[in-house]
Structure formats: structure tokens, C-alpha cells
């Protein structure tokens, strides 16, 4: 059975090796400061007692005020798993250091997050859209992106760049590729209950 590592036990050692790297250790996760993420993850990977050689999974959650990056780090020899997190505090232009120099496995998972959530990974060698075409307006997995009509969680009525017109964009219809979508001024950041 894979052991789940206790972040409380690892945090002091990590703090000793990389001072100022631990942000919090609550909720079963070791939350790291994005500034020293690279050094901290390198320590977790190279420390023989931790041996977290494999990035099992990488994803992100949009908490509307900030983004939370979620990493599951796995040791194959010692068979334990650590839930690591970091935050991207700037919701408009989120960026965190890329893990690709440490784990090659982050390559496509970070590209996916760039595409669907608009998180920039500093130092990623090939940060481009992956599923959607260049110039697609906005990032669909963000909570302020358009919600589907008639469903349980209401989102914006239309695409962020549009003025109240709910239409799907077609490739080439957007003049400025890569331009960040403008946030509508008066739109509530949090949906106000179902609109069904």
C-alpha cells in the first residue's frame, strides 16, 4: 500500500535545507512558496529518504482569487506519495516556475494547464496552446469563463471578450491572437446561484 507522507514531518527538514520554502502544511498537503519551488522540489527529489523521483500528477484549481497548483510526487522504490501544492497569487496573469527541468513528465501537463487555465510556467521550453487553437479567447477551465446554459453552476453569459453576445468563436475570428481576455467590468466574480 502506498504510504501518504505527512507534510508536518517533512516541512522542518525542507525548511532547514531550503529556508523559507514552506508556505503551509495544513490539509494534508505541503504548500510551497512559488519563489523557491525549484530548489524545494529538487530537495524532495534528491533526498535519499524521500526519493520522490516521479511526478505522478500535476494539475491546478482556480479558487477565483488565486490558482492552486497540485503536484502528487511519488517514490517508486520507497512506495510513498506526497501531496505538494503551490499558489499563483495573481489571478489576472498567474505564473509559477516550471517543473520541466526537474521532471520531464511535467512537459505536457503544464502545457495543458497553460492552454486551459492560462497559467504561465516560467522556464517551460515549449509553452504553447495544446488542445485549442492559437487565438482562442480565454481559458475554459477558469471559473470566470462562460458557463453552459441550463446547468447547475452558472458562469458568464458569453465569452469574456464579447459584449453580451453568446456565440462560439470560429478559428481566425479573433484579431489579436494571444491577447489576454478583457474582464467584463460589472460581472460578478462569483456566480449568484443557479440561473436555470
Amino acid at each position, binding site marked *: 500500500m502506498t504510504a501518504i507522507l505527512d507534510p508536518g514531518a517533512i516541512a522542518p527538514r525542507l525548511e532547514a535545507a531550503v529556508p523559507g520554502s514552506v508556505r503551509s502544511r495544513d490539509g494534508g498537503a505541503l504548500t510551497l512558496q512559488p519563489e523557491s519551488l525549484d530548489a524545494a522540489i529538487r530537495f524532495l527529489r534528491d533526498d535519499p529518504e524521500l526519493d520522490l523521483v516521479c511526478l505522478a*500528477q500535476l494539475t491546478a484549481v482556480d479558487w477565483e482569487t488565486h490558482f492552486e497548483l*497540485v503536484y502528487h510526487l511519488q517514490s517508486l522504490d520507497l512506495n510513498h506519495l506526497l501531496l505538494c501544492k503551490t499558489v499563483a497569487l495573481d489571478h489576472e496573469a498567474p505564473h509559477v516556475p516550471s517543473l520541466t527541468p526537474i*521532471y520531464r513528465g511535467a*512537459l505536457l501537463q503544464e502545457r495543458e494547464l497553460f492552454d486551459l487555465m492560462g497559467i504561465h510556467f516560467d522556464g517551460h521550453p515549449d509553452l504553447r496552446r*495544446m488542445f485549442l487553437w492559437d487565438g482562442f479567447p480565454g481559458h475554459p477551465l477558469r471559473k470566470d*469563463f462562460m458557463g453552459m446554459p441550463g446547468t447547475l453552476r452558472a458562469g458568464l453569459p458569453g465569452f469574456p471578450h464579447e459584449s453580451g453576445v453568446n456565440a462560439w468563436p470560429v478559428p481566425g475570428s479573433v484579431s489579436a491572437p494571444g491577447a489576454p481576455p478583457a474582464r467584463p467590468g460589472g460581472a460578478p466574480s462569483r456566480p449568484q446561484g443557479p440561473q436555470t
Partner: protein
Amino acid sequence: MSGQTQSDPAEPVIVNLGPQHPSTHGVFRIKVALDGERVQDAEMIIGYLHRSMEKLAEERTYTQNIPFTDRIDYLAAMTNNLAYCMAVEKLAGVEVPPRAQAIRILFAELQRIASHAMANGTFANDCGAWQTPLFHMFRERERVLDMFEMTCGARLTTNYMRIGGVAFDLPDELLPTLREFLHDMPEKIGEYHDLLVGNEILVARGRDVGKISAEAAINASLSGPMLRGSGVPWDLRKADPYCGYEHLDFDVPVGRNGDCYDRFLVRMEEVKQSVRILDQLVDNIPGGPWLTAVPLHLQAPIGEAYARVESPRGELGFYVVSDGGPVPYRFHCRPPSLINLTALREMTIGGTLADAIVTLGSIDIVVGEIDR
């Protein structure tokens, strides 16, 4: 970009493999830069099948999301159902009755047989053993799909697992059919081994092609037969057992060279091990309920859960976050097909174009899972 009209002979020729090409196993495109027959660079272009399931799932209840998981990896729908249901069960603290656990393993292993039949058949296709092995293997896959149909009415997108168990009990005719299937399988597997293992075509096309070392495979987060083909005995059924795999006796086959042929051998051997698991299970399915009573509009407590299973393609995980509402706040699938493609570029550069096709075949991608 079309290099064929260029006058400079040093200019690489750009060739598009796919998106519509039999060897790309779906709408998957690789742009290769060729110097003669040698691959200089390979860039994959994906997204043709992107349906934005993770966004859609944030707007539907936990139960309504189960059919999406079928369509993520349509060649292993049962396994996908299982992984998602396990994640929600972990999040909501739902106990699964022992009978449901046994039924889940049963169908997960049948699905592995069906999926590996497809993988090995199409791999032989890519190597040049055109269609004959594939159609032989489809014979067994067909019998597995018949068993799915008699249990849940669907053959491909099964939608069979539920949060807290499975949707229906096993029909009376299933276990006799399964026993007959298991009785025939050793002979059929022997037939495939005679036909394919050591076959000149497969050895010539697969040996030392698309090699990747164990260290590189771990660093690139590869999983499943890709990782085991490189000699790493990592199987979540052994390493992090779920649904009672810890009580079953089976081996984890590994390769030695990390090449395409080894991955093929690992899959062949895994079919044998799946039959072994089913042999132990078929007469030992406990009685009792097959589904815990879970509210249809389940509201999971605030929190997060990551559950993972060993799908035929590797580590399939679901990460589900709840904010206490009726729908998941975040729904993420860790797709083994996509992450196994991380190593595609390294494995194909320097080889021939024909080897790139074999390498892609040996990864066993499902485009529905890559694009989601």
C-alpha cells in the same frame, strides 16, 4: 513549410502523419521533419477530439459525470468508471460492499484483456502484420464485449460502475459464459504466442526501436506497459492495491530493453495474468448487496481526493475537488495516454519514419483520453 518543392537538399522534408491515418489510432497528428528516411524532429499536434470534459463535469452532479468517463478512454470504459467512482467514494467517504469490489475487479480485468487485444493487434498492424493478428484478437475481444453487453447493455461505453458499487448485479448467464471464456483462453493465448512472440516481423520491427531507459521513463512520468517495458516493476495493483487486489495472486511482467518489442511482450504477458486473476475470482465472488445506498444528488463534503487505478494504459487518476455543492468544483483526469506521449519525441528522433509509426503503436494511445 512544404519541403518537397525546396531546392536546397539540406532542407528537411516536413511530413504530416495524420490526423487521418490508420497508424495514428484516431485523430492524432505528428509533424515530422525528415532528412531522407531519418526523423530529425517530431512534433505532435493534438486537440482534434477535445470536448472539454473537465469543464462540462464542473456543471453536472457527481453521478451525471460517470458517462463522461466512458468517453475519456473508450477502449477501457470500465476502468475509467472505476477510477472516477473511487475518487468520489474517497471524497464522500462511501463504503463499497465486497460483492461490488469483486465485480469491479472482474470487469476491470476483462477490460484489460479486451484493451490489450486491441493494443497488440494494432501494434502488429503497425509492424506490417496487416490485420490478421488484429482480427484473431478481436475474436476474444468480442466475447468480452458480449459479457459487458449481457451485464449492462452496452459494449463500449458501459457506464456500469456507480458511486458506492455497480449499477446492476451479475446476470445469471454471466458466470457460465465467463467460465467458458476462461477455459478457452489458455489455448487462445498459446495460439497468439505461437503466432506473434518471436515472429520475425515483430522482432525485426520492434527490437531496439523506440528505446527508453528506466530512469528516463520514470522522469517522464511514464506508466503502465511503457514503464514496465523499461524494466520498472511498478503496477498500482501491487504497489497501491484497490478493490481487493491485495488478496489476489498475480505477477507483474517487466521487459529488459525498454523497446517496442518489450512493451508488446509485457502486454501479452499481462493478458495471461488477467486470466489468472479471473480464474481466482470467478468462483469466489461474495454474496450480498452490489450497491450502497448513496443519494442521487450526492453532496460531497468540502475537500479533495485523488484516486488512481492501473488502467491498461497506465496510471489513470481522477482528482476531484468539492466545495460542498452538488457538483464537483474541479474534476481532473490524469490521462496515461497523454503523459506517455511525453517521451514520443525522444524515442522517435534519429530513427526512421517507419520506426516512428511502430513506436507510436507501442505507446497504445487512445485519442479520447489524450484530448478529453
